[in-house]
């Protein structure tokens, strides 16, 4: 009896040790939820929860793409600006009375193209990922304003379905989110491509010498990141029923921060979607609590920064202890 117990304890211990970043961030999330429900009676209100789930779905989709790039040792800062352009494209195409299929198809195509451009810059032209994607993010934000400096309202039945309808009691946008997450999580963890992303992020020159096509892997990962940004943009547009060119401004680093909090190594090679999603939830819940406390956006940013730094410091401390042990 006691041996099985100790064995169980050992299993639990090794699970905790192997997944410290996920576990510690999960504990943080629980704490935030408890704090949230204590602070405000509205926190667990269904309206508030669905608000959280909306944000969770578009930031989560973007972060999932971002994770691929970051596991590769890269970074994609342009996601929120690609999202901005996508939102504006939806608005313009709606005004021009495109059908929903064309609108969504072209928007996604734009995301793929934007990601592909990042891929070319980073993988082929060897521009530093941070610089390359800061560059494209400036460009895309400018494009968003050039498309239309003023908001455009969107009234499209299909977009409304995405934004507001429920399927089997669950919002359509959450369904989209689930599909994306399952596909990306699956690709990342179980397919040869996912493996290539991990190994190329762990050590690009070893991977290249071991026959991995690192350039192609990078191009595909950046393209996925662009695609998810555009998809998040479509959901954003559908949810707000309007397109404004500063969509996503101020949240450029949110997917990246979520990934980092969720345990993706900035040096690449490590990271799991579960961790990233918990990371996104932490960010979104934190934002929500701030809003419920009616603190302004500046406090939100301040708080997000503190959480990001604390979680990194915590992980650093844990890693140090692991090494010393």
């Amino acid at each position, binding site marked *: 009896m006691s041996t099985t117990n100790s064995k169980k304890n050992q299993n639990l211990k090794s699970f905790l040790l192997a997944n410290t970043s996920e576990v510690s961030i999960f504990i943080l999330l629980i704490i935030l939820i408890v704090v949230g429900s204590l602070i405000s009676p509205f926190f667990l209100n269904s309206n508030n929860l669905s608000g959280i789930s909306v944000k969770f779905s578009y930031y989560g989709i973007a972060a999932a793409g971002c994770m691929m790039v970051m596991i590769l040792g890269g970074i994609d800062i342009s996601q929120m600006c690609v999202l901005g352009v996508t939102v504006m494209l939806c608005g313009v195409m709606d005004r021009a009375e495109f059908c929903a299929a064309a609108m969504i198809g072209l928007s996604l195509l734009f995301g793929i193209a934007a990601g592909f451009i990042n891929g070319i810059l980073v993988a082929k032209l060897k521009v530093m990922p941070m610089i390359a994607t800061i560059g494209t993010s400036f460009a895309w934000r400018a494009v968003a304003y050039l498309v239309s400096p003023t908001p455009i309202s969107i009234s499209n039945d299909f977009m409304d379905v995405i934004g507001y309808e429920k399927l089997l009691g669950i919002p359509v946008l959450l369904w989209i989110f689930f599909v994306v997450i399952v596909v990306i999580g699956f690709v990342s963890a179980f397919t040869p491509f996912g493996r290539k992303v991990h190994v190329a992020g762990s050590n690009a*020159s*070893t991977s*290249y010498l071991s026959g*991995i096509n690192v350039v192609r892997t990078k191009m595909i990962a950046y393209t996925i990141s662009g695609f998810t940004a555009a998809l998040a943009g479509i959901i954003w547009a559908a949810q707000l029923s309007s397109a404004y060119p500063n969509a996503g401004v101020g949240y450029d680093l949110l997917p990246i921060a979520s990934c980092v909090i969720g345990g993706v190594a900035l040096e690449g090679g*490590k990271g799991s979607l579960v961790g990233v999603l918990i990371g996104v939830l932490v960010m979104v819940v934190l934002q929500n609590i701030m809003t419920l406390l009616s603190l302004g956006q500046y406090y939100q940013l301040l708080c997000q920064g503190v959480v990001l730094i604390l979680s990194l410091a915590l992980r650093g401390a844990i890693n140090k202890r692991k090494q010393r042990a």
Partner: protein
Amino acid sequence: MSIIESETKDMQEIILEMKNISKAFPGVQALNNVSLTLGKGEVLALIGENGAGKSTLMKILSGAYRQDSGEIFFKGEPLKDYSPAQAIAKGISIIYQELNDLPELTIASNIFTGNLPRKGPFIDYKQLKLDSIEAQKLVGLGDLHPFERVGELKVAQKQLIEIARSFVRDADIIVMDEPTATLTNTEIDVLYKIIREFTAKGGSVIIITHKLEEVFEIANRAMVLRDGCNVGEWAIKDVTKDQLVQAMVGRELNRDNALAPRDFGQVALKVENLSTDFLKDISFELREGEVLGLYGLVGSGCDVLTRCVYGAEKFDTGTVTLPGGCVGLSKVTPGKSLEAGVAFVPSERKMEGLLLDQSVRINTTLSSIKDFVKNFVISFSKERENAQQWVETLATKTPTIETEVNSLSGGNQQKVVFAKVMNTNPKVLILNEPTRGIDVGAKAEIYHIIEDFCKKGVAILLVSSEMPETMLLSDRIITLCDGAVTGEFVRGQYTQYDILHAVIGGDEK
């Protein structure tokens, strides 16, 4: 043994004493009651197989690790709970195998990092230059400009710069971890001279090495560790090489297991007129089951040549014909070479051979992941089975196949690299420094693995900077000097002198 110990104690003033040091890591007792004494002016060789605990012991001395139990006395005073910076300040200086140089900074800044001469709040560059030249002279680098970037220097010179740094910090003890692993013979002689000068002035040196010739050349005393325990300590004059080897491995070693004469098969690899801006018109053929050794001094082009053949580097003219047929210029990539049946073991094991932060399993299947895919999905059970099999076949010492290769010893890491390339079923295998930084026991095992390859008809292109190894393994040796072939020697039809003559360019016979 105790007589010798008391003898040394009588003869010399003891500068360092480490008493009954123990240190455990999860799953391993890295050090078990290890003691070490070091006399003033003495060179102590610390030897043992990889994983014997040498590095751990030195990391404890440096202050990077803390021992679980045991005491350290330095100049008769106990040392407790100190940081690496404090160790340096007290006069204990460690030069790691992976040098700690700052490649972007100048020689002078590297030597004086941490104690740059100042004039008010500013760095006194004039003084720095003068001081640096003085320090450089101590290690025979007086003719280099102090403000040259260290990144531009050769490995040997970088190492000497580190030694100069230790001198400047008034080190009493310098620990050198495999200082000669990447040096040429002339460079080694320079290093020996500097060590002798240092000890003549009362400095003490602990040298960690795998080369036993070196122990007899430079050390006064040798101490052997095995599996984290002291197994013996001898004054050099009282010990033979065989005794040391036996103490290290704890078993008899059949050392000269030259490959038996074999019949070679068809031509497996053909290189014709390969040239780059450095390599000059190189041609050779390699047959199935044959080991062709490329031998030359550091910078002779052997490494570059193998990289060109593998497609890791571009070449300008010439052709490389791989087993799968002719592959032309610039189209060769490692991926295509692997498909054609050419596998590559790079000399920089940690930087280019392995994914250090990934598991044994992931490293093992790195080049062959497509063989483990079923319906677009990786079959983890097949993958685990494969990794486990290789661990057993090659007797790789690892807690589990999910262990990060980072925590394995050099020899076991190299076995993981071999498992990786063997998984691709190569017809041609390019080996660059297959036993660099690997202890004697693991070396013999690696030789066996190479032998097995030959028996299976794999053609092997070998580059090793250790001449005995090249001579032992190669059926044929091609010598290179300055990017050009200077000679070709068939087993049994040359002397060591012939090869040495050829690698320094020879005079045209």
